């Protein structure tokens, strides 16, 4: 900070505005009561020199400040509070329909996962992995299949402050699984406005009641959120969900440069699962119990103005109790030898524990450099007897070390460099580097050239899926039913992504456009293998079991854009479009992944503010024909229109909003992901009350 010496004198008239106030005070002087005694400025309301010269704790520390979109090494889409509100969406994954290049489909599975299928640029099954998903910096994808159990996340859309979506690989910053994209959810925290709020939702097959409180006790700021949600799921499917949620977040400033944060989140509830059309014998319609919880402690230490240290440790648990008993198997295994028992029981309990310690140091070695580096150690403990074919829990260790630097070469050119080295139990050591150059052509026009590489470590399903079911007979031999027999030893998938991006602002128009070319190698796919069986085992499945192998390569290329346009002060339009083509030798693989992403997806959100109380929005989503992997089947183009009307109100000691949302206004009965998922119209009414 520079100090300046006198250069010119202050003209007296410029003081005039102050003397007005002085005049007023002068007038009062004559009325001073003799009884007024000292001290005079002791009222805590009086601003003193401390307000000007005293310290203010550093809030926007280097690690808290994110790169602006124009400086970012990748395309970033932010879904903010206002967009979430305007969209009327109540399920988190559906918000991603507002991000160019995303494929989102409602899906009701039947063994374990009945959740939305979310992928960026396709190649997704009912268990889509390949994307890093973080809540407040904590990774929430499950090690079992690499994807996210969206409905089991301990947050609701109402808890979200914003979602930052990195489109394209970004392993250098976010680590394992940041293969196709990164979804970083940032929740509201204890710095929110203090007080209570209630949100009630009632609608077609959906009821929710949540209570939130933000307050402080002895310098500890905290936020508590608790509630219940029930969702009946899709028509004619057995996929209802009942969920209880409790979250507690607390922050405390130990002193000006140290802050401690705690988070505790928990969910439990029931999930209906099973589909007779897919499995009449074992995973028949049933209700299973789920629960999840996590505990986190975070320490932020501000080393200096240009340097920050962050250390966090957490444990996360995700599990389900699901013991399934088959139907009477005797008619099915009619041949000799006869069965010892008429049914078999399979333990489909799943317990996933994740322990992680992460450290991160952000600093600015020179004014035009900013560096972030750090590392983490993670242990994933997976107990999934049905999936892994063992009653033992299996441990997966992951260590990573990452570093990235932002170099502001001059006002026009900025370079980002980064790399991550990762070591894991499945595939050993891997390196994911990244580089990009952002060129500011004019103050509001930036071109970005980026090359990024990432690996995707096989998940448990790809590495160790082994589900033998033995059906004993009276003669000592057993029938064997088995769908998967992973031989392990698969390699990571690898992506090399090139992109040219443009970010521009023309008057009321904001444009984010991107041309991309992703080269994906070693794609994991399945093939059938013949098992060598001991003499007393009779293989009884119709087909040989599958195993994963690194099967082929693909090239994904296309164009996507997000445009925001402020038509009038009161009317805004958000427009997303993507065109994605997947090229590859479809004969090289058992499944045709080239059609696993709709060629064209389109979404738009129009919001209009009628006056200070009334506002309305209209959302349109169009997804082209697609044939997803796994259990997915060919579904045609679908169109969906949502409308939302809201009115704000003010009461004496409270304020709030009532809104009505109609999803799929025209009730078009389209299919998503597979033909067994049929969508229909749904109407919801929400009441928000803050007091």
């Amino acid at each position, binding site marked *: 900070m520079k*100090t300046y010496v006198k250069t010119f004198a202050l003209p007296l*008239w410029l003081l005039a505005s102050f003397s007005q106030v002085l005049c007023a005070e*002068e007038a009062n002087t004559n009325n001073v009561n003799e009884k007024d005694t000292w001290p005079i400025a002791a009222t805590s309301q009086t601003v003193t020199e401390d307000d000007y010269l005293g310290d203010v704790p550093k*809030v*926007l520390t280097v690690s808290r*400040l994110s790169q602006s979109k124009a400086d970012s090494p990748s395309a970033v889409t932010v879904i903010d509070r206002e967009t979430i509100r305007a969209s009327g969406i109540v399920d988190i994954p559906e918000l991603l329909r507002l991000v160019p290049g995303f494929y989102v489909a409602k899906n009701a599975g039947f063994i374990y996962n009945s959740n939305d299928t979310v992928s960026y640029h396709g190649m997704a099954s009912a268990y889509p992995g390949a994307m890093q998903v973080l809540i407040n910096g904590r990774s929430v994808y499950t090690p079992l299949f690499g994807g996210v159990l969206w409905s089991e996340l301990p947050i609701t859309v109402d808890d979200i402050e914003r979602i930052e979506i990195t489109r394209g690989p970004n392993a250098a910053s976010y680590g394992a699984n940041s293969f196709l994209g990164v979804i970083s959810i940032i929740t509201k925290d204890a710095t*929110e406005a203090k007080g209570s709020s209630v949100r009630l939702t009632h609608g077609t097959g959906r009821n929710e009641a949540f209570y939130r409180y933000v307050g402080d006790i002895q310098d500890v700021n905290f936020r508590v959120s608790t509630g219940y949600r029930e969702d009946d799921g899709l028509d004619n499917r057995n996929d209802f969900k009942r969920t209880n949620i409790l979250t507690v977040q607390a922050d405390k400033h130990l002193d000006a440069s140290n802050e401690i944060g705690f988070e505790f989140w928990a969910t439990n509830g029931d999930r209906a699962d099973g589909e007779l059309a897919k499995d009449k014998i074992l995973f028949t319609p049933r209700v299973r119990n789920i629960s999840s919880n996590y505990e986190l402690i975070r320490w932020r230490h501000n080393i200096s103005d240009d340097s920050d240290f962050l250390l966090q440790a957490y444990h996360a648990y995700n599990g389900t109790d699901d013991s399934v008993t088959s139907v009477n198997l005797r008619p099915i295994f009619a041949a000799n030898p006869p069965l010892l028992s008429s049914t078999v029981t399979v333990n489909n309990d799943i317990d996933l524990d994740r322990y992680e310690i992460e450290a991160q140091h952000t600093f600015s070695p020179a004014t035009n450099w900013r560096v972030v580096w750090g590392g983490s150690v993670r242990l994933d403990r997976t107990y999934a007897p049905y999936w892994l074919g063992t009653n033992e829990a299996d441990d997966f260790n992951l260590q990573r070390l990452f570093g990235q630097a932002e170099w*502001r070469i001059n006002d026009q050119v900025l370079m980002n460099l980064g790399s991550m080295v990762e070591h894991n139990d499945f595939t050993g050591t891997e390196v994911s580097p990244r580089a990009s150059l952002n060129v500011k052509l004019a103050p509001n026009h930036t071109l970005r050239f980026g090359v990024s590489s990432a690996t995707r470590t096989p998940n448990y399903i790809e590495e160790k899926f082994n589900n033998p079911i033995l059906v004993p007979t009276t003669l000592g031999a057993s029938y064997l039913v088995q769908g998967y027999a992973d031989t392990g030893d698969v390699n990571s998938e690898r992506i090399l992504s090139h992109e040219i991006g443009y970010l521009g602002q023309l008057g009321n128009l904001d444009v984010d456009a991107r041309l991309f070319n992703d080269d994906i190698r070693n794609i994991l796919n399945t093939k059938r293998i013949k098992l060598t069986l001991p003499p007393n085992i009779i293989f009884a499945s119709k087909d040989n079991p599958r195993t994963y192998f690194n099967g082929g390569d693909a090239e994904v290329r296309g164009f996507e854009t997000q445009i925001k346009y402020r038509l009038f002060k009161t009317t805004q339009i958000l427009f997303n479009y993507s065109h994605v083509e997947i090229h590859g030798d479809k004969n090289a693989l058992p499944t045709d992944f080239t059609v696993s992403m709709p060629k064209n997806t389109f979404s738009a959100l129009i919001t209009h503010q009628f006056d200070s109380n009334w506002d309305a929005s209209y959302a349109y989503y169009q997804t082209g024909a697609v044939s997803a992997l796994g259990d997915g089947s060919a579904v045609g183009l679908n169109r969906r229109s949502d409308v939302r009307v809201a009115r704000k109100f003010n009461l004496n000691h409270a304020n709030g909003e009532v809104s009505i949302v109609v999803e799929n206004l025209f009730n078009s009965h389209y299919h998503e992901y597979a033909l067994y998922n049929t969508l229909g119209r749904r109407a919801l009414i929400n009441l928000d009350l803050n007091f």
Partner: protein
Amino acid sequence: MFSKWLACFALVLGLFAPVFAQAYTGVTILMSAPSPANSEFIENFKNELASTKNANLRVNVIVLQETEKLIVAENSELVIALGVKALEAASRLQHTTPVLGVFTPLPAFNEVLAKSRRELGNFSAIVLDQPYWRQLSLIRAVLPDAKKVGILFGSVSSQYIEIIKEEGEERAFSIVDESVTQEADLIPKLKILLESTDALLAIPDRLVYNRETAESILLTSYRHQKPMFGYSQSYVRAGALASVYSSSKQVAMQAAEIAIKSQLAPSLLPPPQVPEYFSISVNNQVAHSLNIPLMDEAMLYKKMLEAETLEVMEHEKTKH
């Protein structure tokens, strides 16, 4: 409007009761504690006097003690009070003792003035408040296209609403204000402001800006991707985009000028005044994160001076 101001001045001048006073021979600097800012002020003040050849003022420093009675050579000293507490103590000295407050915000000065029934002629201050036009001029220099500036007023600062609005209009800003009457309103009202404005200008008021609220205000503004203009260097360090401030050295320079000029006529201290010399402090990290192109501090300062000079010239024109 200007004639009204002149009338005010006349009133102010009228209150300069012509009291008998002799030239002072020394300066007593009074402070409640030797804080870094105070020490820096004293050092620079002494240096300033030393560099002025015709000044032969002694400088004496007193740290206020709670229990002891304040002893000052009341009729031969100029008392420079550092901070509000010191100013209060100084106001209890004989009414003929010339007192110059330093590091005192204007509302606190007014409060002490009112309670002590001192007169402006020998009771004055260099206030901590930077003039609003200077702060608005900084916003203009940093954000040439900004149209709306949001201000959160508390019960104390609300008295300045009209002045700031007028100053804003002159610089093509529309000032959007929200008044906070209780702590619970703070963040909701801030959000309303942030949604409709280009920047937030902080005006000191304990109800709005204090150690407890600083974090929420800065984080909320940042989440809305709106820059905040603070009123101190500390705020810039904490996360405000920029602020105008005067260093201890700059205030010491101004105080030394007053001490020398008024030496022979201690009952004719200049009226309370805003800091004459100022500096700019910017937070480049915040600027980059908000994608706001920022000139360096020296360039910004130059640009603001140009704008100020232009304003003075234009004002001279309208006057003639």
